């Protein structure tokens, strides 16, 4: 209110220690909500890195295939020629995608094996060192995965009873579930015993729409847009994880709102006498309620700001310790979460506000 004594703000800043403790508590609680939400968004984003980044305009799959995570696609290599012949197709390459186990110093690591033709589509899109796989025993590992297992360009390891040599390290090729491991298409076919079959045929074209319908007519296969495939994969992941994850975020969110409310409430209890003074001076219940709500809003806004900083700090720490976890939080998410937290805190602050509304001004005489 213009031209009025900012009592709510003054009350909050009068005791700096208390304010700092309150802000830290509220900030930590809201920061946790942001961290969990950012983590979950990050996983949904990361899980589709391959579809998003590999550079294909169409993934040609076995009919009925909807996602990489949830389906097993098998397409005959023989159709590759038919597809390449379609006008508008710039190039088409087979890719083999299978889960497999890597035996690293006795520890089993599941990886998503990606076999692609040397120089063709489907291989790593960003190398931090080395080169792509070109001979049967070449492998490209994700850099963070390699770091974690003390592997580097030149390191050797075993997979499926075969010896491999690391020839390159790729970036952005790890999800929290698995890391991608790139080999040649031929090696992948050998390892999985799937001669004559690829998981997908990747197509590059400027006219995905017309090319897709042509592929469908000529081969009976199902060309999927990377975005569609990514969306379906996100749905598969969400179907698996969404329940517990959202429950966790929900509980954290409720706790954050309660922490704000509790902080406001204990502030009220500590200052009961001062509210009594304001009332004795002639403040109506509504003025008192405004004071409490004003402090709640200030606390929630400042706490959200601090929470965002804590989120950044937390995300940074996680990135150091567990690089396979990504974070993604857009401003919209932050605003929605923060305003929801403020809204819930306001609802929760009604209890202390009502309590004060009924406060007798004679409280000023009591020894608290």
């Amino acid at each position: 209110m213009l031209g009025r004594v900012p009592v709510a703000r003054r009350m909050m800043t009068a005791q700096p220690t208390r304010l700092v403790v309150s802000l830290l508590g509220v900030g930590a609680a809201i920061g946790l909500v942001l961290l969990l939400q950012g983590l979950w968004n990050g996983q949904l984003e990361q899980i589709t890195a391959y579809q998003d980044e590999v550079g294909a305009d169409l993934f040609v799959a076995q009919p009925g295939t909807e996602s990489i995570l949830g389906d097993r696609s098998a397409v005959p290599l023989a159709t590759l020629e038919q597809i390449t012949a379609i006008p508008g197709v710039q190039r088409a390459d087979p890719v083999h995608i299978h889960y497999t186990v890597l035996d690293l110093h006795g520890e089993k690591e599941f990886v998503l094996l990606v076999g692609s033709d040397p120089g063709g589509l489907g291989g790593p899109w960003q190398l931090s060192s080395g080169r792509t796989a070109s001979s049967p025993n070449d492998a490209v590992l994700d850099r963070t995965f390699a770091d974690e297992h003390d592997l580097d360009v030149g390191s050797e390891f075993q997979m499926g009873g075969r010896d491999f040599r690391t020839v390159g390290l790729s970036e952005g090729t790890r999800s929290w579930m698995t890391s991608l491991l790139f080999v040649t298409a031929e090696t992948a076919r050998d390892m999985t015993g799937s001669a004559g079959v690829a998981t997908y045929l990747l197509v590059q074209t400027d006219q995905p729409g017309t090319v897709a319908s042509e592929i469908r007519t000529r081969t009976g296969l199902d060309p999927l847009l990377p975005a569609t495939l990514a969306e379906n994969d996100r749905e598969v992941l969400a179907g698996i994880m969404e329940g517990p994850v959202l429950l966790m975020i929900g509980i954290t969110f409720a706790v954050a709102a309660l922490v704000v409310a509790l902080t406001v409430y204990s502030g009220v209890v500590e200052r009961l006498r001062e509210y009594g003074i304001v009332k004795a001076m002639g403040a109506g219940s509504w003025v008192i309620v405004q004071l409490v709500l004003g402090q709640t809003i200030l606390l929630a806004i400042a706490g959200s700001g601090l929470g965002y900083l804590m989120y950044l700090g937390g995300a940074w720490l996680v990135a150091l310790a567990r690089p396979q976890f990504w974070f993604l939080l857009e401003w919209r998410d932050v605003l929605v979460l923060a305003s929801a937290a403020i809204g819930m805190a306001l609802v929760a602050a009604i209890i202390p506000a009502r309590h004060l509304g009924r406060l007798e001004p004679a409280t000023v005489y009591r020894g608290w």
Partner: protein
Amino acid sequence: MSEPTLAARQLEKTYGEDATLVHAVRHVDFEVEPGEVVLIMGPSGSGKTTLLSMLGAMLRPTSGEVLVNGVDIAAVPEARLPKLRATTFGFVFQDFNLLGALTALENVELALNLAGTSGRTARERAEELLARLGLAGRLTFRPDQLSGGEKQRVAIARALANQPPVILADEPTANLDSKIGHEIARLLRAIATEEQRAVVMVSHDSRLKEVADRVVWLEDGVFRDLDDMTTDPVCGMSVHSEGAPHLQAEEGILYFCSRACRDEYAAASVSGRPPTASDVNIPNEA
């Protein structure tokens, strides 16, 4: 005789029920005229604070009326009370009751805000009041940076902010040393005289008598006749003779505030010289 600014008619307050029923104030009749300073005295627990709270619309009486310029504030609906408190009464408390988070200026300004005055008008009025009370150099100080006397002067400025017809002061000097206490008492006296406000003070401090036009004695929730009042010869406290510890001395019956004072007097008189207030350490009752 002018119309009383403040009047209480058959004012009563009880707490609890049946076995636990306590009469804090019983059937009190009382009037204060404009410009008059009335001092209510009485021992602790006599109902002084309860009476003052009822006079100031901070506590609803169990029965009876409180009239301010002829209007019964005890019958005013709850929703209208805050406005009434803001504009009709100015409160001065024993422990000042300033808001620790606000500056001296803001404490006064807030009172104006609550009565509907805001912005520059409120600020200028607050500054003017504080300057008048000699606090022009303390405007931005917070209560914890002020001395006791300064705090009480801020509280008085706050009480005067909305030019209320009635000033209610609860032990206004109890937390101050005697010199400052005296200053505050004279200030309240001057306010009553110069601005024609009705001032009601509640106190143990008999030094306030000198600024009061009238002193009334409240004990066990009822006013006692001041003619029955005497002074404890040991500690100097005012004592109502009815039911008080007493002894027969050469100069007549002496009344004491407590048995301890009586016994001390008796012991001293045996040894030769009865003690007086000057050589007894008076505990300052808060």
